[in-house]
Structures are given as C-alpha cells and as structure tokens.
C-alpha cells in the first residue's frame, strides 16, 4: 500500500461508524448548553477531553454542583477503559516517535480502536501503514465529533428525543464487536461482561463497566485454558 491509500483506508473503514457518532456529538453539545454552559464551553469540552461518555457524566455532575474532585475522578474512572485499549493497540504503533505517540494517543477512542485492531488482526500490514491507517480513522472521528458537538451546542436540541437516536450508539458497538466474537472463549467473555454490566449498573462512578470488563476477560482466559487442556 502507498502512504495515501492506508490513511484513506482508515478514513473509509471508520466512515460508516459516523452514523452512530453524529447523534452522540449533537447530544454532547446540546446537553452542555441545556445545563447552562455557554456554547463555546460545551463545544471546547469535546476538543479538550474527546471522550463523549465522560463528558456527559461530567456535565451532569457539574449541573448537580458536585465538587471538582468528584467530577474529575468520575470522568477518569469512565475513561479507564482507554488503559486497556492503549495496551492492546501499543504493539501496532510502537515505531512512532514519543511525541508522535502523544498525538496518536489523543486520538484513541472506542471507535478508532475497534476499527483498527480488527483491521490489524485480519491484514498483516507493515508498521508505517498501521500508523497511517490508525491516523486516518482517528482524525476522521475527531473532525466529525467536534463538528457535531458545535452543531449541537449552537443549534440546540435539533433532534426530537422520540427518534431515540441514542440507540445508534449500542448498534455501532454491536457491529464492531461481532467480528471479535469469533470463537467460544470470546463469546463467553462477551456474555459474561454483558451480564455483569447489567447486574452492576447501580454501582457508583460507573464502576460496573470496569467490573464487567474484568469478569469478561477472566471468563475468556479461563475458557481458553479449559479448551487447551481439555
């Protein structure tokens, strides 16, 4: 692949996911303004944090006058999943310079991560192509998310809530996860994580998400060991 085509392949592979990201960006912008933030603040939050779920929770907590420390800590717990993504994608990006890695890390999202690891798992790309592919996917998401946040902030809630466009978010994740559930251990990991997430939904600070991920990973590893020895 030449330089341009691996970048463009990343852009192309991420593009269909934008259908799920656009309503999310609109919601992030509209919710901030609805909570009394000026438009510039609701818009800039997406560029500074660039992690929608934690932004929604932060706005909600600030709206409830929670202390700064609680808001920051809660946001970081929700974003702790990026630690796992970072470890998982690191081998594919290790030839970048330390400063380049900082820029690549800033672009790490659920969508760019999932799109990239599935492509890297299927095709054996050389390292520079992997970095360009990831950059194409990450930048596409960044531009779309920030543009739609600004739209949501300045135009307000232009999408009627009865359309339930927030449902596009789990549908996006579903399309991303199905190719990863390719054997029994992975299916068990998915089922265990999903069920624990349902049971643990009442836990404070979104700890249920981390508990579910840990249980899923443990279930997958145990099933794989069983398979190998059994």
């Amino acid at each position, binding site marked *: 692949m030449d330089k341009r085509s691996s970048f463009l392949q990343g852009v192309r592979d991420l593009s*269909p*996911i934008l*259908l*799920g990201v656009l309503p999310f960006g609109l919601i992030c912008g509209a919710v901030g303004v609805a909570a*009394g*933030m000026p438009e510039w*603040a609701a818009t800039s939050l997406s560029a*500074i*944090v660039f*992690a929608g779920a934690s*932004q929604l929770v*932060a*706005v909600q907590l*600030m709206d409830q006058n929670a202390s*700064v420390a609680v*808001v*920051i800590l809660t*946001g*970081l717990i929700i*974003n702790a999943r990026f*630690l*796992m*993504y*970072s*470890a*998982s994608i*690191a*081998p594919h990006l290790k030839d970048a310079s330390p400063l380049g890695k900082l820029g*690549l*890390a800033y672009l790490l999202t659920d969508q760019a991560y999932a799109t990239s690891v599935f492509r890297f798992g299927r095709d054996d790309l050389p390292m520079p192509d992997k970095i360009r592919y990831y950059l194409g996917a990450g930048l596409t998401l960044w531009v779309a998310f920030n543009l739609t946040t600004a739209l949501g902030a300045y135009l307000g809630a232009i999408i009627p809530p*009865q359309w*339930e466009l927030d*449902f596009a978010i*789990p*549908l*996006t*994740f*579903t*399309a991303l*996860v*199905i190719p*990863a559930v390719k054997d029994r251990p*992975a299916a068990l*990991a*998915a*089922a*265990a*994580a*999903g069920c*624990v*997430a*349902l049971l643990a*939904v009442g836990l404070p600070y979104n700890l*249920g998400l981390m508990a*579910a*991920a840990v249980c*899923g*990973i443990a279930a*997958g*590893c145990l099933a794989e060991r069983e398979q190998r020895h059994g």
Partner: protein
Amino acid sequence: MVDMTTYWPVALGIGAGTLLIRYSFILIMDKVTLPDLVHRMLRFIPASVLPALIFPAVFLHQSGDAVAWAGPERTVAWLAAVLIAWKTRNILATIAAGMAVLWLLKALA
C-alpha cells in the same frame, strides 16, 4: 446549572488525565515486555468492554438513579441488528436495521 468557575479545572483535569491514560502503554510498550498471560488477556478486551457498553443501553432504561427494563422494542431491534451484523459484517446495514425495526415497533405500538 453549571457553575462556570468549575469549568476549566474540570475540563483540563479530565482532559489531561484521560490523555495520560491513553498515552500510558502506547509510550512504554516497546520498553517493557509483557508476560504471555497479559497478551492472552488483551485479546478479550474488545469482546468484553463493548458488550459491557451495549447490554445496559439495550436492556435498561436509566433516568437519574432509577433503573428499569427498557421494554421489548429495543431488545427485538437489537437482535435484528445482531443478525444483520453477523450475516453482512456491515456497520451501516447494522445501524439501519436496528433503527428501522425500533421505529417500526414504536409506530405499531
């Protein structure tokens, strides 16, 4: 209402902290060698984290601290989307199928 004196500490605090989390392993991975067990665990990250985000959004309805079952419409729409995702591996088709079934069921209700 959001007290705007808290905006910059919150935005910069979550922003910088999240960037450090994202940077962590991407920066140090080539300097440390991960044990085999960790490599096996990494394979299950997407298969675990994504369902943990999906299941509550499909099956539960949350408003504030109250949690209730979301009703059958989203479950049926999601199962249709799973089938399409499995058959086509196409993200756009998956989202379109799930939203179409949801809107249809709500229109019929």
